[in-house]
């Protein structure tokens, strides 16, 4: 069973034809959960089907559209504020993911929401970029010592940097994939091939590299709560990248040493969105992929999509373990699991004590005539 939200994305006309009140209810709920309300709004507008949907559904899709528009304005304002701090940076500062989609004005960015600004810089210049962000008012907030060490030692980014007044969050990356991984994804081509934004200190990846990055993000990840959104992003980025030629995608995959991720992505997109991949591209990518990995991906996605499946819960757990294993390898994962459990236990005790203290101080009482 495919989630109704994915059904709408796959074939909006057919979806509208068959939808009843319960299906529309599920759509609103799932699109809100997946942060896809605004994307669905534009999909239906582009297809000329927006006026064919019930008013109640319009209320929520339009809400998503409004929210995404607001985010677009906020992002542009934020980037303008960042510009002077990076104007003399003697290295590429590459915007990634949602921020890059929006500033490249990809059609898929319309209605799309995102939670932070992702910036990639060369590892050697990481301290300099961090310094510039600090000067711009972006600082670290409340993170445990363990989590901080985790970010710095094993991940591909600095702990989130949050603007001390505006609350905007920036992820500063030196890679697109955790350094603790046994996969050898290369980052240098992402920096070297980036395209400078006109009149800006920042650059964006090529469309082919954006797609390859999304493939890496989806197939080595451990979270499931935005799976439909990730798959929709992947398909939309594919459409943008394929317009510039399939060979570019294969070349980008080869440059980043991410052929396996792209092969699995093609496989899933063929299955869900009926894309046509040439035999040549598959021949070039297949030697890097693993047949059982491909089959397990499909099986996991099928179970994750179906809450009624008796394997649904297990698929969630397996997806998380699989993602972590790919990111860290077994020994690091074992160490991380134990250390994180101890950390969480300690934190919970401290948090509970603090909460009890606070509750005692704010004992409700009659606040007078209100």
């Amino acid at each position, binding site marked *: 069973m495919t989630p109704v939200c994915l059904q709408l994305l796959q074939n909006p006309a057919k979806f509208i034809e068959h939808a009843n009140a319960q299906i529309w209810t599920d759509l609103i709920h799932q699109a809100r959960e997946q942060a896809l309300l605004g994307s669905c709004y534009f999909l239906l507008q582009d297809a000329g089907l927006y006026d064919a949907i019930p008013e*109640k559904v319009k209320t*929520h899709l339009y809400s998503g559209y*409004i*929210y995404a528009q607001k985010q677009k*304005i906020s992002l542009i304002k934020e980037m303008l504020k960042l510009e002077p701090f990076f104007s003399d940076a003697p290295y590429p500062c590459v915007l990634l993911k949602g921020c890059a989609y929006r500033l490249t004005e990809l059609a898929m960015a319309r209605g799309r929401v995102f939670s932070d600004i992702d910036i990639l810089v060369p590892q050697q210049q990481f301290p300099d970029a961090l310094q510039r962000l600090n000067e711009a008012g972006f600082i670290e907030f409340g993170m445990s010592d363990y989590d901080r060490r985790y970010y710095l030692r094993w991940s591909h980014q600095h702990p989130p940097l949050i603007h001390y007044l505006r609350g905007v969050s920036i992820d500063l990356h030196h890679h697109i994939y955790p350094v603790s991984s046994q996969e050898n994804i290369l980052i240098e081509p992402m920096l070297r091939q980036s395209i400078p934004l006109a009149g800006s200190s920042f650059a964006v990846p090529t469309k082919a590299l954006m797609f390859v990055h999304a493939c890496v993000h989806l197939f080595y990840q451990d979270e499931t*709560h935005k799976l439909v959104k990730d798959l929709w992003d992947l398909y939309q980025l594919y459409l943008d990248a394929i317009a510039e030629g399939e060979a570019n995608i294969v070349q980008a995959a080869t440059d980043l040493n991410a052929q396996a991720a792209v092969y699995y992505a093609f496989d899933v997109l063929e299955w869900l969105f009926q894309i046509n991949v040439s035999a040549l591209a598959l021949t070039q990518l297949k030697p890097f992929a693993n047949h059982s990995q491909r089959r397990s991906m499909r099986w996991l996605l099928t179970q994750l999509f179906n809450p009624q499946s008796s394997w649904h819960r297990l698929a969630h757990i397996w997806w998380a373990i699989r993602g972590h294993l790919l990111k860290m390898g077994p020994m690091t994962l074992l160490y991380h699991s134990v250390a994180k459990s101890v950390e969480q236990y300690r934190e919970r005790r401290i948090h509970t004590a603090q909460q009890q203290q606070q509750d005692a101080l704010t004992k409700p009482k009659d606040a007078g005539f209100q």
Partner: protein
Amino acid sequence: MTTSFVLASAPFNFQVNTSGSVLYDQLQQLYPASVLQNSPSTDIIDFQIDFKKNWWSFSQSYAFKLGQHHFRMTAKPQLLSVFEWGLNWAVSSYQNRYLCIHAAVLEKNGISLILPAPPGSGKSTLCALLMLSGWRLLSDEHCLIDPQTGMILPFVRPISLKNRSIAVLNQRYAKNIVQCVVPDTFKGTIGYLPPTAESWQLMHQPVQPAYVIFPKYNAHVAATEFSGIEQSQLFMQLAVNCFNYTVLAEVGFETLGRLVKQVVGIRLEYANTDEALQLIAELD
């Protein structure tokens, strides 16, 4: 045991799943059967809410959640208050179809009143008194303006009253007119005044904005102030009382601009409640 029910409260339908029947039993005192429905809805649901105990938790606390979005945990005695706040949170956080002003709205003979005010100004008390003197309630919390038409949509729910307001209402009208009193919430004691029958009957009927009154109860003022507010000031004061003015951006600016041109703005500071009610009754 999970109880499922629908709150068909225009313009939004809520589907609620909760542990046990305590919440449902309390809501029956506040909502009519046409709104609080225990059968599955044939209409589209706007917000699907889980307000259940976590099966793995020893604390027996209930968690109010809209999908994965968590609002607040609560113990059983505060279930009703957290539920009502949770509905407010869902609407003020997740809908941007309408411009939403934090204000009470009432209507009588085609004349509407918008009462925006910060907590503690006596907005809900005045709203309750007006409703009990014949005004129909559109909302105690959310003034929903449709940017397309400029009309106010009703979002009828029980009026939430705090602390001494409960005694004021009970004293003035009948003992126990304020129902489901919940002590020891973080806002103090909360009680609920059910909307009048007329308010429920007209819950689908929008109204044209007419007056915006900023009420302030102040026991120390000698004379009631009932003075006009300039349009520019009115605009700014309404903007700061909006939940989603900044999110709506241009739409918000245009909607509020149109509203300000349509209405008369009034500042009301009073110690004498009857005099305040009389001044409002004389509006035409």
